[in-house]
């Protein structure tokens, strides 16, 4: 649990410094979507943030075996369906676990708190349903 909390400190610093230094919100889904939008004139920093995410993971994976186990052993159709739901859902809601969950809640945004409560409830119900089906 202590190790996990150090990870939390690092996540908080990453998001907090981006806002304090550049005034930008570390919402991963929005950063990815707008980083790929050719009409957006501030794409470069977004793509660099995404590259940083992968690099951060690679550094830890080299030091701590098993830190990045990859996707769970479920069928490819289920993975792709889940990926599409995550993409479409965070696109419609304008944010995901990072943008709403980490940054929005830290700013006390009502929209974000409502989004977090909704996706946590939906996630819990899904895990429950999958468990019951199995």
């Amino acid at each position, binding site marked *: *649990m202590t*190790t*996990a909390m150090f*990870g*939390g*400190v*690092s*996540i*908080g610093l990453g*998001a*907090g410094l*981006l*806002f304090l230094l*550049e*005034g*930008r919100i570390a919402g991963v889904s929005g950063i990815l*979507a*707008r980083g*790929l939008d*050719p009409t957006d004139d501030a794409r*470069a*920093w977004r793509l660099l*943030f995404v*590259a*940083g*995410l*992968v*690099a*951060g*993971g690679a550094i830890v994976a*080299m030091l701590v*075996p*098993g830190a990045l186990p*990859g*996707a769970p*052993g479920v069928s*490819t159709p289920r*993975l792709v369906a889940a*990926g599409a*739901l*995550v993409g*479409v*859902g965070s*696109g*419609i*809601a304008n944010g*995901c*676990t990072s943008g709403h969950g*980490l940054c929005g809640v830290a*700013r006390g*945004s009502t*929209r974000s708190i*409502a989004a*977090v409560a*909704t*996706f946590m409830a939906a*996630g819990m*119900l*899904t895990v*429950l349903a999958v468990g019951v089906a199995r």
Partner: protein
Amino acid sequence: MSQRTSLVAAGSGVLFGAGLAVSGLTRPEMVQGFLDVTGRWDPTLGVVMAVAAAINAALVAVAMRRRRPLCAETLSLPATGRVDRRLLAGAAVFGVGWGLVGICPGPALTSLASGDPSVLAFVAAMTAGLVLTRVVATRARDGRRTNHKESAMLARFFVFAVTILLPGVAQAVTLATPLLQGDTALTCAVTNVGTQEASLASVEMFGATGMAVLADDYCGATLGPRQSCQLVEGGTRPLGFCQVTGSGKLRLTIIGYDAAGPMAALPGTAK
């Protein structure tokens, strides 16, 4: 865009990604464990998010008090609006996908470094979903008759996938190959340290302190998440101890493995 912005964005991404990997949020079973409130609930994700949000909130408070960031002109805050149906519907759809496999956008991108092709499949579907939603939203805002924006955006998506993701993933696969390819496949007795229940399993070893993946034919009933077990090759040679860190196709993280001889004891347990 200034060089400083590039540096801050990349550095912030590295801190964020490394934090996700260190805290275990890149392990789908931990995420699903947190969402599994009626079963074997794992509070770790909540604790990590609380710590991260507290630190983020402290830095955000400083920025809000100054009314402008240290290195840029303005704070880019999202337009505040009311809680509407669109927000709640999107969050609900997101939550279902999140619960189905235990991966959300941040950990998905970070996990690209694992070189697991399944992660790439998830990220491709997720990116397609994000781009599609954005295209539809742009079209709705700008009217039916849209320009070359959309096609350019989609082209960009494919160029991005091919030129940035694939070589990066290939590189990560090369780096991580010793971890990703089991060097030996063994038939082992897996004994639950707690209950002493044993079961036969095919185990793929991933180096001395790496991972072992139990074959599908393993009867998972005797081992649940976070339970410790002992691996004994062919029923005779103790290979070491491990902890179950996954479900479905069970993944074991070996926390002690000595190729030369039997391990003395599982760290943290009595002999």
